[in-house]
């Protein structure tokens, strides 16, 4: 493959050799064929540490081509250090175009968020996954959890939800909230907030999940059913904020809380930096776009 001159000398396009990429693509194809099933793959040692997105990077390296446009986000933002670092890695080793615009990207690699801007058919969302096994905290043994998946023995997952309700009155899992994919496999959506779970359901984009250290790839093909576990009388619900984004006024996005002083002052801003910037460009603004909010935690109406 011809390599742009900016590429790191001595390394193949997108770092991995072509045999490895083929192996990864085979695993991806199998994952797409069995939605939600964790396909073991020969995960390679990458020049970034395990736990820092090596699974996502290998999936991206396996599917990326010179014509792709890559967006990388961490916590929803394009400018966090890890997102910058991964984007640089692909800019260096593959020389591909990068973007911060969700709609311009052909591949979006993400850690912990799904962009607020709806994804389109043809786009691929690549999740970085630390622990792929949804049953892991309930059953530490891989040999046993594989059997539980094979036999669809998921009762124990509901035990956890039951305990939450009997203790707190509602399900208290806030992120990495387990989902059932295509009515068959129980799947961990990676540590995205449950706020993002509904976006996974029947999404037009292909969703790929890579866990490098645990050596698993799984997938949700476009338009596949993804249902968050719940009880009929305690249906799944997403987080809601009393506030809106201080900068752009959005009341439909996931908000990060920013501590503005040491006296409990805080404000909320969109975690998706691209979404927030777009809204502001379009003329939207929040309650206090020009200054930090001065709301104190003690005044927030919380019983704390």
């Amino acid at each position, binding site marked *: 493959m011809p390599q742009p001159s900016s590429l790191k000398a001595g*390394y193949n396009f997108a770092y991995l*050799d072509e045999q*490895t990429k083929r192996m990864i693509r085979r695993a991806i194809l199998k994952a797409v064929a069995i939605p939600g099933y964790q396909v*073991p*793959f*020969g995960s*390679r*040692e*990458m020049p970034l*540490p*395990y*736990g*820092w997105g*090596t699974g996502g990077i290998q999936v991206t390296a396996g599917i990326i081509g010179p014509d792709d446009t890559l967006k990388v986000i*961490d*916590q929803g*933002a394009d*400018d*966090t*250090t*890890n*997102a*910058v*670092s991964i984007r*640089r890695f692909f800019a260096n080793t593959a020389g591909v175009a990068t973007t911060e615009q969700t709609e311009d990207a052909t591949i979006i690699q993400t850690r*912990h*968020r799904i962009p607020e801007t709806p994804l389109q058919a043809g786009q691929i969302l690549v999740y970085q996954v*630390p622990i792929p096994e949804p049953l892991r905290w309930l059953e530490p*043994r*891989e*040999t046993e959890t594989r059997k539980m998946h094979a036999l669809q023995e998921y009762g124990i997952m509901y035990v956890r939800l039951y305990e939450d309700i009997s203790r*707190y009155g509602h399900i*208290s899992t*806030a*992120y990495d909230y387990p989902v059932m994919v295509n009515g068959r496999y129980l799947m961990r959506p990676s*540590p*995205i*907030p*449950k*706020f993002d779970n509904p976006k996974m359901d029947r999404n037009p984009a292909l969703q790929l999940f890579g866990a490098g*250290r645990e*050596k698993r790839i799984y997938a949700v093909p476009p338009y596949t059913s993804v249902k968050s576990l719940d009880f009929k009388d305690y249906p799944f619900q997403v*987080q809601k*904020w009393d506030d809106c984004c201080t*900068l752009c006024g959005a009341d439909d996005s*996931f*908000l*990060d*809380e*920013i501590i*503005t002083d040491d006296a409990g002052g805080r*404000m909320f*801003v969109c*975690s998706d*930096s691209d979404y927030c910037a777009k809204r502001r460009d379009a003329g939207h603004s929040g309650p206090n776009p*020009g*200054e*930090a909010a001065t709301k104190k935690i003690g005044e927030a109406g919380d*019983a*704390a």
Partner: protein
Amino acid sequence: MYVAVKGGEKAIENSLDLVAEERRGDRDVPELTIEQIKSQMALAVDRVMTEGSIYDRDLAALAIKQAQGDIIEAVFLLRAYRTTLPRFGYSAPIDTAQMGIQRRISATYKDLPGGQILGPTYDYTHRLLDFDLTEENRNGPAAARTAPEAVNDGEIPHVTDLLNHEGLIQQEPETDEDAPIADLTRQPLAFPAGRDLRLQNLARGDEGFLLALGYSTQRGYGNNHPFVGEIRMGEVSVEIEPEELGFPIEIGEITVTECELVNQFAGTADSPPQFTRGYGLSFGKAERKAIAMGLVDRALRCRELGEEPTAPAQDEEFVLYHTDNVEASGFLQHLKLPHYVDFQSELELIRKLRAEYMARRQAAAE
């Protein structure tokens, strides 16, 4: 005005510059050379090669220099480099009976064919800080009294072979020479793991972790009454057999340390009492690692020997999933990455739960 934290790019560049500066240290002090590390920190080089899974003293020394002496970081550098190397072929099994012996000891026999050779070892040094070493001494200590010439009088039999003549030690099961050998750098771990896979995993595993596990077996967590049948260290030749040639050719020599443990075993209804084996092998001089590996290998053989697995060192999934320090270190350190979103979700939840709790208390009080 609040501005979301920008400039990650610049921060990273600055950080890289700071690392480079710290690595170089005081510029009045001469820079370390790869040659110095190779020859004077040879045991660090051996460990990095073993856990980095690549026998190359220059690359390992470079990794140690680049990592400022952080051994696990150096292993990681070597592993990441190793990933990119193409495979030209597979070597024939090394034959340690043909080793050019530098050191060979047995704890089970006072004397044995081939003899005991103490060789270089820290075992009988008194651990007194040697202040003479604070001064550079160009001439070095007096040359060794007997030149450390490798002993190789043809084949030197293994202690386990001697025991085998009497049928006193467990026969290793016959293996099909053409059967594929597991390779966890190409296929992920699968359970139950064959012994080939287990040994590969242990050989790459973190010395500290194996040391602790091996030690735990000695303290009663899966005791298997080990004796060091033999430790031998020296040079063996590596051969490959290119398909077009049809005969093996030697491509070089490597130094390895091999440890064969002899363990007690009471026998079962089907098999008479006999000794069993644990095996350890490392690149270079890494004796502690080889013994620890042998202890854990033996512990993991509990199932094939009909012993009930009860201790951590006998738990295949527990051991094999946690040996790799590149995996462990990466995942542990990823805790430093931002978790704003997860934390925000938890924050919301805790506030909600507390509000509900307070409301319940209030209602109860009224």
